[in-house]
């Protein structure tokens, strides 16, 4: 069914942060122009636009593209919570891989400062949301259970944040560029025990844009070689009315399994991973979900420095959601931008030497009975 090879040929983003005076359009237009220019193409070369956002309101994509006179072609607005941007990426990949489009633009954009702070607004129709559930509580319960079942300690949750900040300090696009210590993380304001504020991703705004192209279009338009999309996988959560193992999220395990099969590589081949570290516990759980280590042994991997620069696989070289920030719909696209820059040697101070394979992963949660509602995984190969 999939005939065409698909390539990420350019990427652009704005630094994530609190851009209170910016609109969705204002956040996204600048990286949109940059991404087209870096791809060496004009707007008339674009066949379709896919826009991931969760809180932008109606026609967010069209409001952005009209600013540069990019119309007539299909523009698709995609909401899958934190997976919105990566789902937009998956839709664009499907269109190109099946020969329905040659060049697609993917925009991820979000403005969370519009809510004035606090936790992410979830659907008021959800029964657990009606009971007062918020995302930090979900991840905190994961953390409580994981600490209970494993040898990991609360200091390990802090070490995830310390690593994220260390990486973010090297990234000009990161919302937080100051390093922190384990002691500072543990002493920060409690949000949902055992999680402190510094174990939670920040509220912020941002936008990221990538251009995808078929092999055919890449040659025809003289675009840069780019990185090959070796796998693009989107899964939805499966409802469970009874007990569920919160430390073993089936949606991420199964998405990773399918992505590895599609790409024909395994965890041992990866040079970097950008994963969904919305809260620090998530990173430990996803080490196990992606097969980097066995069950309940994630903390040792972290403590031994296997997942930072110089280790086996650099996890969240960008600083991840914890340090780079997490403007919901933008995150999945920003992860792809990071993979693109790392695999093309453009990552500056945080460059992973000779990076060949990258995996990006975002989930989207906040629904009773599901571990997460959505999970998107991409694997990329360097040129």
């Amino acid at each position: 069914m999939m005939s065409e090879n698909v390539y990420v040929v350019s990427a652009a983003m704005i630094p994530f942060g609190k851009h209170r005076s910016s609109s969705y359009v204002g956040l996204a237009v600048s990286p949109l122009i940059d991404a087209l220019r870096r791809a060496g193409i004009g707007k008339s070369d674009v066949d379709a636009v896919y826009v991931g956002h969760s809180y932008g309101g109606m026609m967010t994509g069209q409001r952005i593209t009209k600013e540069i006179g990019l119309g007539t072609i299909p523009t698709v607005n995609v909401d899958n919570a934190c997976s919105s941007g990566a789902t937009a990426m998956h839709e664009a990949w499907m269109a190109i891989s099946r020969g329905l489009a040659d060049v697609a633009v993917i925009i991820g954009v979000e403005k969370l400062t519009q809510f004035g702070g606090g936790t992410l607004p979830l659907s008021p129709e959800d029964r657990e949301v009606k009971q007062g559930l918020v995302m930090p509580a979900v991840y905190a319960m994961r953390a409580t259970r994981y600490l209970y079942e494993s040898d990991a300690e609360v200091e390990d949750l802090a070490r995830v944040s310390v690593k994220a900040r260390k990486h973010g300090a090297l990234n000009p696009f990161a919302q937080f560029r100051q390093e922190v210590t384990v002691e500072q993380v543990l002493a920060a304001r409690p949000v949902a025990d055992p999680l402190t504020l510094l174990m939670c991703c920040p509220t912020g705004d941002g936008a990221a844009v990538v251009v995808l192209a078929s092999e055919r279009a890449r040659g025809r338009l003289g675009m840069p070689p780019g990185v090959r999309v070796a796998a693009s996988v989107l899964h939805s959560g499966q409802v469970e009315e009874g007990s569920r193992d919160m430390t073993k999220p089936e949606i991420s395990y199964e998405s990773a399994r399918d992505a590895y099969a599609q790409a024909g590589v395994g965890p041992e081949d990866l040079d970097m991973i950008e994963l969904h570290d919305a809260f620090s516990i998530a990173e430990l759980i996803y080490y196990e979900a992606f097969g980097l280590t066995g069950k309940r042994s994630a903390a040792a991997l972290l403590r031994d420095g296997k997942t930072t620069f110089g280790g086996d696989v650099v996890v969240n070289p960008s600083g991840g959601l914890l340090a780079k920030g997490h403007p919901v719909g933008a995150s999945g696209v920003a992860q792809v931008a990071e993979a693109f820059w790392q695999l093309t040697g453009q990552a500056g101070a945080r460059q992973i030497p000779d990076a060949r394979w990258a995996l990006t992963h975002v989930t989207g949660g906040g629904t009773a009975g599901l571990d997460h509602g959505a999970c998107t995984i991409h694997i990329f190969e360097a040129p």
Partner: protein
Amino acid sequence: MIGARVVCSSCVSREVSRVALPATGVLYSFTRLHVGGEGVRPVGYVDLDDGVRTLADIREGKVPLRPDMRVELGVDGDDWFFAPARGE
């Protein structure tokens, strides 16, 4: 009422009815929530003795909360909650 459905998510039957749930179960996990309201609010997932999982407010007593401890339903006016079971 916990988890009311109009359709069964396994067999897709619309023939659903109300069932009484057990008042006892096991605390799968919990957190003390410091945001989104006044003060500190302990919440947790309780696996009831018939296998149903529910989110619930948890009342803390003298016994520290821990996963897998036995809990039982309590009612306080219109509020319901789970608290460590007697004997814990």
